[in-house]
């Protein structure tokens, strides 16, 4: 317990440090002193421009989306009792991508891209819910049908891209890998509102969620309702991930890796919700710092970094875990 608190505090410090560094680095850097002046309302136009248009929004969107992805992954892994579970696995990211593809390429200017993302994600998850025959009651069926739905959504996206002209596809590219380039304060507000609503609900659910690792029968016998808890958790997970995807695109591996990294750091057995949130935010801040300030990968969508680094780190974790299990 004490260890979790210390770790949480350290992660907060790291997020804050990473955030400040992201703002301060380079030619357009806004240092801590500029921030204080800006908070007092006395900043010059350059500083204001960087804070409100360039680096501020992407930092906030990154932190918010990271928290959402981290919690989404932890919820999903808990109720499916599958360490490789994440909303991406059941087609959320690909559904969102297909939604954006349809919205931006077939109906440009009519349906905004974030709305397309949320609608696409909702359709994909709705399909999964219907086609398992049991809703979200059976974790194995959810994952298997999810893989099928994800594949269909990807095929749809590729079809839309293939039949459309390529001019509108730069915005689309962001939604296919996830990006924090040119975010707005409006998007930061959107993810903040989503978190303000969804995180308290998640905290309430956490009480019954703790019992899910005992299996459905015991969770029920100890005063829970396993099927209802699982459905609520998957819904919250999907909503959190959809909110993050709508502001930042389907950034790969954060939802999958953050709970694992948090679990490894804390030494607690199951997914740890608050730590997963903080690790998610930290991954996003560090990845965004990298694409803003490290020359070889400058201006790449942030999803490329999280996929590359997160994938490697997750692979490392799994291999060392398996080695330990075999020893």
């Amino acid at each position, binding site marked *: 317990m004490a260890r979790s608190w210390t770790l949480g505090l350290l992660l907060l410090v790291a997020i804050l440090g990473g955030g400040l560094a992201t703002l301060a680095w380079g030619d357009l850097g806004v240092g801590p002193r500029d921030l204080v002046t800006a908070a007092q309302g006395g900043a010059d136009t350059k500083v204001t421009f960087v804070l409100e248009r360039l680096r501020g929004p992407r930092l906030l969107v990154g932190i918010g989306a990271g928290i959402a992805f981290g919690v989404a992954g932890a919820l999903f892994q808990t109720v499916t009792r599958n360490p490789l579970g994440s909303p991406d696995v059941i087609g959320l990211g690909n559904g969102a991508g297909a939604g954006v593809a349809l919205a931006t390429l077939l109906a440009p200017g009519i349906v905004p891209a974030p709305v397309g993302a949320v609608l696409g994600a909702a359709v994909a998850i709705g399909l999964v819910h219907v086609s398992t025959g049991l809703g979200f009651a059976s974790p194995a069926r959810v994952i298997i049908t999810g893989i099928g739905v994800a594949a269909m959504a990807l095929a749809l996206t590729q079809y839309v891209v293939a039949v459309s002209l390529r001019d509108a596809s730069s915005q689309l590219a962001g939604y296919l890998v996830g990006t924090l380039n040119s975010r707005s304060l409006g998007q930061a507000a959107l993810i903040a509102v989503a978190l303000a609503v969804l995180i308290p609900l998640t*905290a309430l659910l956490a009480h019954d969620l703790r019992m899910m690792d*005992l299996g459905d*029968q*015991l969770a029920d*016998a100890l*005063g829970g309702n396993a099927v209802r808890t699982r459905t609520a958790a998957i819904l919250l997970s999907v909503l959190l991930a959809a909110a993050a995807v709508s502001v930042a695109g389907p950034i790969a591996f954060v939802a999958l890796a953050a709970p694992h990294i948090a679990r490894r750091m804390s030494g607690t*057995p*199951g997914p740890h919700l608050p730590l997963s949130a903080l690790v998610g935010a930290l991954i996003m801040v560090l990845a965004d710092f990298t694409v803003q300030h490290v020359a070889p990968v400058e201006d790449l969508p942030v999803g490329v970094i999280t996929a590359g680094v997160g994938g490697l780190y997750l692979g490392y974790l799994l291999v060392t875990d398996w080695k330990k299990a075999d020893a």
Partner: protein
Amino acid sequence: MSAPLTEPIGSADPSSLRLAGATVAYAERPVLEGFDLEVSRGMFTAVIGPNGCGKSTMLKALARTLRPRAGAALLDGRPLAQWRSKAIARRIALLPQDPVVPEGITVKALVARGRHPYHSPWRQWLSGDDEVVAEALRATGVEQIADRPVAGLSGGQRQRVWIAMILAQDTEYVLLDEPTSFLDIAHQIEVLHLCQDMRDQGRTVVAVLHDLNQAARYADHLVVMDAGRIVAEGSPSEVLHAELVAEVFDLQAEIAEDPQSGTPMVIPVRRAGDQVIRS
């Protein structure tokens, strides 16, 4: 046998747990149809019957983990469906046949899970919880291993830990689904003794058992099931007869008296071709 009957505190009505005309089905296949059973309060009841006769299904229906299609499971005369699930979990505990051990959990942490029905999102731990958990660890003899991970324990130790969790739940009714399966003989007897201890504390214990002799020796009351029906019910000496064993289990047997306890003992009759080897 006089069983201690404790009245629930502050209530004049005696508590009761029963199935009334319950039809319970998996998918489309009904396992129990119009099933009636009143759990004998303050006793250790053993439910016996051949594989697939509906013993476990009956137990799950009593514990609300399976809901009857028709009829009802009634606690104090009120259908379980009308109770809040936490309120049921403070009255009825169920140990499933093959419970999942959470990854990396210690003995003490697992036993503490038994306190869940008393908690809420706002009250995650109560002042008396530590004592209840300590008492459950002591009563099952697992206090020495309280800080060890459950995954590393032997089958016998693990089963005692699960029973400690059920004890920490502190319920009037304790339902156990095949608690002795997969244990060696000494640990089977240990679990049966724990069942008797729980009865002596005033709890009502219902266990699905496979071994007829153990059921007759350790339980106060037998419920014999076959093909989704109760075929006999009563004390072991009233119920366990050669005809019943032949009819229900399709086994030719003699009934003898257990030299230790005087309870009935089922001894299979030799087949015509069997060789008797004497050393």
